[in-house]
């Protein structure tokens, strides 16, 4: 060990444990993912353009095919601090199917997911629902009430999406803080009850 510039010992014996929990925000194109992360994050949400393949190396993860074209994907993420040593990170997942592998990474070890749905085009949320069901990752379906009306019947949505009885369906407005808090507490409660 060097004495020059020595900072702090490695946390050992579990006395100093920092924990970061991941929640995914998924759903179809334009359904309100970015909005939801922005509504609840305590930091200005990062909207980053991520480069996925090395320039010049030439192997694209997605296809295994030689390519010199840089692939980028937009990701949103936000943070909620729970305790000094415990954070909740929200990741808005990329909408396009070709980024499934990115979902795999984000979903690994995650607490759960919110699938945003728009009743005018409910089918857009099916890929996300299928994905999380297959992964056995706890999720809730949040119906984003774009027209502001509360006339959507959760039972109808449940039937249309083919959800089992235990998966919560909640109405929400992604622009509204209280509403997003509701969605997240529902998810956390569901995730804990599923263990």
């Amino acid at each position, binding site marked *: *060990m*060097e004495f*020059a*510039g*020595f*900072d*702090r010992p*490695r*946390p050992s014996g579990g006395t*100093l444990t*920092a*924990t*970061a*929990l*991941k929640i995914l925000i998924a759903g179809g194109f334009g359904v309100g993912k970015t909005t939801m992360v922005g509504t*609840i994050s*305590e*930091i*200005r949400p*990062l*909207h*980053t*353009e*991520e*480069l*996925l*393949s*090395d*320039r*010049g190396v030439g192997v694209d993860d997605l296809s295994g095919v030689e390519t010199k074209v840089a692939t*980028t994907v937009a*990701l949103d*993420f936000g*943070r*909620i*601090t*729970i*305790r000094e*040593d*415990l*954070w*909740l*990170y929200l*990741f808005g997942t990329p909408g396009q199917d070709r980024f499934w592998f990115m979902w795999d*990474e*984000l979903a*690994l*070890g*995650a*607490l*759960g997911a919110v699938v945003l749905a728009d009743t005018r085009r409910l089918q857009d949320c099916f890929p996300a629902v299928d994905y999380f069901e297959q992964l056995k990752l706890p999720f809730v379906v949040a119906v984003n009430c774009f027209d502001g009306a509360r006339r959507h019947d959760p039972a109808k949505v449940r039937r249309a999406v083919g959800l089992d009885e235990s998966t919560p369906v909640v109405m929400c407005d992604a622009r509204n*803080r209280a509403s997003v*808090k509701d969605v*997240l*507490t529902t998810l*956390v*409660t569901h*995730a*804990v009850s599923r*263990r």
Partner: protein
Amino acid sequence: MERDGTVTDEDPGPLVRLYGLTGGRARPPGESFDLVAIVTTIRTPFELPGLNPEHHAMLSICRRPTPVADVAAQLGLPLNITRVLLGDLRREGLVNIDPPQPANQTIDERTYRDVLHGIRRL
């Protein structure tokens, strides 16, 4: 260089410039690690050739154990670029990167209540 946390728009310029930081690498050296892996600085060298100002900033941030995603947020850097630079620091033995526990194993009764309370309090 713009450091406002937004690296979007049609102009590929900022991204290309940022990738200058990593020498064009999109993946960190060594074993891959999660976006919420916890990074802890082990030591801060007075001088080490090859470290850029971003590396130094990361060493300073991670004196307090910090998730990868948060290092990115604090520096306004894309996640993958942050990860490459943190990978460099790990290779030099300057930081530890601890894989996160899966949430379903981490969450005990107290954590669960804290998380609920934390969300409601917002």
